[in-house]
């Protein structure tokens, strides 16, 4: 990413990165009864596209005067990911956490986050991941931009700030497009467009010293309780199908390797249909 032409003596940019904590992709499990993702007792991570958005913000901070604020909405267990984000180099984090938010789908989530961003205030740039690995809707980023009435560029892999404007390379289905818009704006970032950095010792010490995460309730932000939570979420998960793995028929060949290797090859050829 290139960020040429920062105006000397300019105010630090305020960059807000929205992240979600998700179950680790490799460990995803669907509860066979409730048909929802198991989230308890499964290792978590920063939603991988959000980590790319965070890295894009930190690259910006490496070259510009910028303040990077990480924002999330969820239970206090999300502090784990917010702490990691600060240890990676973000300046501070805000967690919107309230029981009444439980069960919110992307509609109340976009509303609640946009209210929280308005309360943080003074933002120049909002970065979101293109979608989450646990729901894959890609709704929330554009939803926030809608509520804030801010311009947006989705699915970007590169970002430049030139003369107070944003230029971004957008990944389209049949190629890439370059878009330009004014600040403040919102972008959603492609998964895998960069390599998120590791936490630093300095960052981890900042986390240990404390005071880097702010918790806000809906009341503190001024969020309308009638617009959030399960009952105010129009999406209903009707059914989730899991793909069943084909059955395996293990066989153990024991004895002299000369014979067992031959038996194994025959079995692969005959039962497995593998040409050897």
């Amino acid at each position, binding site marked *: 990413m290139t960020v040429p032409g920062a105006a000397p003596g300019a105010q630090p940019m305020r960059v807000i990165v929205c992240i979600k904590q998700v179950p680790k992709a490799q460990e995803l499990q669907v509860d066979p009864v409730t048909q929802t993702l198991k989230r308890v007792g499964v290792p978590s991570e920063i939603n991988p596209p959000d980590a790319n958005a965070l890295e894009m913000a930190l690259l910006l901070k490496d070259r510009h005067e910028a303040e990077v604020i990480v924002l999330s909405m969820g239970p206090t267990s999300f502090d784990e990911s917010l702490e990691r984000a600060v240890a990676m180099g973000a300046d501070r984090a805000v967690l919107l956490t309230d029981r009444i938010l439980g069960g919110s789908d992307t509609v109340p989530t976009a509303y609640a986050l946009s209210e929280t961003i308005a309360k943080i205030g003074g933002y120049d740039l909002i970065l979101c991941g293109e979608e989450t690995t646990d729901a894959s809707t890609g709704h929330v980023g554009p939803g926030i931009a809608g509520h804030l009435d801010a311009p947006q560029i989705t699915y970007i892999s590169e970002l430049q700030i030139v003369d107070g404007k944003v230029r971004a390379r957008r990944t389209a289905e049949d190629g890439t497009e370059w878009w330009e818009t004014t600040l403040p704006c919102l972008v959603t970032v492609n998964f895998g467009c960069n390599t998120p950095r590791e936490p630093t*010792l*300095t960052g*981890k*010490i*900042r986390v240990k010293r404390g005071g880097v995460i702010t918790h806000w309730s809906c009341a503190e932000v001024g969020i309308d309780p009638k617009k959030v939570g399960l009952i105010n979420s129009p999406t209903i998960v009707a059914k989730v199908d899991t793909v069943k793995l084909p059955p395996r028929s293990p066989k153990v060949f024991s004895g002299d390797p000369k014979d067992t290797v031959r038996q194994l090859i025959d079995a692969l050829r005959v039962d497995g249909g593998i040409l050897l």
Partner: protein
Amino acid sequence: MAERFDAIVVGAGPAGSAAALTLARKGFSTLLVERGRTPGAKGMFGGRIYAWPLHDLVPDWAKDCPVERFVTRENMAFLAEDASLAVSFDSPKLGQGRASSFTALRAKFDAWLAKKAEEAGATLVTGILVDDLWREDGRVKGVFVAPNDRVASDLVVIAEGATSTLVRRAGLKADLEPREVSVGVKETIELPPETIQERFGLGEKDGAAFIYAGQASMGLRGGGFLYTNKSSISLGLVVSSEDLAQRKIEIQDLQTRFRMHPSVQRLIHGGKVAEYSAHLVPELGAGMMPRIAGDGVLVAGDAAGFLINNGYTFRGVDLAIASGVAAGEAAEAARAAGGMSAANLSAYDRFLRARNVLTDLERFRRAPLYMKNERLFDLYPRMLLEIAERVYTVNGSGKDRLLDIVLEEASSAGVSKLRLLMDLLQGARSM
């Protein structure tokens, strides 16, 4: 602005956590950095800890220390191809108070001791590998993780373990030589607590320790060990890496043979191997010690080579804890004397001697040399087993007196009476 602490301790093993705990108690703002995800995640040892320095450092340690079992039975066994000769000592006194020893699992023990350091005020950061010391004008000024990630301090305590890169980068020690280290391997074998208690004849909290010689290491310099945990057994070998290389033997093959020995198999039968680990063990005692104090730097634990293997006790963790405490005391003395200069920190030596760490290392300095005597690991155990076989075999063909048997076996093994006597004397002196 770089973050800053009075002292940084690198490595949250027993030495590092003991140092951080001591420093924090003495009012130093202290950073304890560990490369594993949690303290103990990267830790490896045989399985037993002598409690004395812990008893001094955390007087109420027994209250919540994750002890597996208190060792109340000590065993020494000589193995031949399929036979074994064992000496067993048991006394409830072995398991009591300051002089006790206990078996432990590093993942639990190290986490516990690091927590004590945190409670005393130290800042623990995990998952960070310190790349180098931050030096300016020949003086240590902190640590580097990356060029733009450094933390400043007046003192760095290196407690990184046997393969410490920082002691080498600090110029305190040359690269490790094969003759300076042994290779340790260990399997953790799961068995129900009741089975362990029944099989070893132990009470619910009691444990057994075994040292194996002879065929355990196929005659190579080194030996085997077995410790009983609550619901697992630690079984492993420590073997000279020089001998392994020379004889082109893979240590995992040795471990398999050791595990399959009938007298070992009897003890672990039915168990499930849950964990396999390997580690380098500093082996030359005081002979391989790096410089342990410099301008703004101290070295503690395995990184300093503080390990004693005198043939009947393997000591590492107790010396590590004691040296960590001594490092904290040296820092306090240096602060009182005006700063963390090499001259002021040389008080470290005095505090180590006050705990007999250096004294014990020097006392057993000759032990490793004696251990270089291959007859001890190969010939004598075999002789011992052959003697035992003859002593205990009654088949009506007439019996010899014990001394005659010993001398006859020695002479048929090509060892003169004088040689035998000299080895005995050398052995007794160095042990």
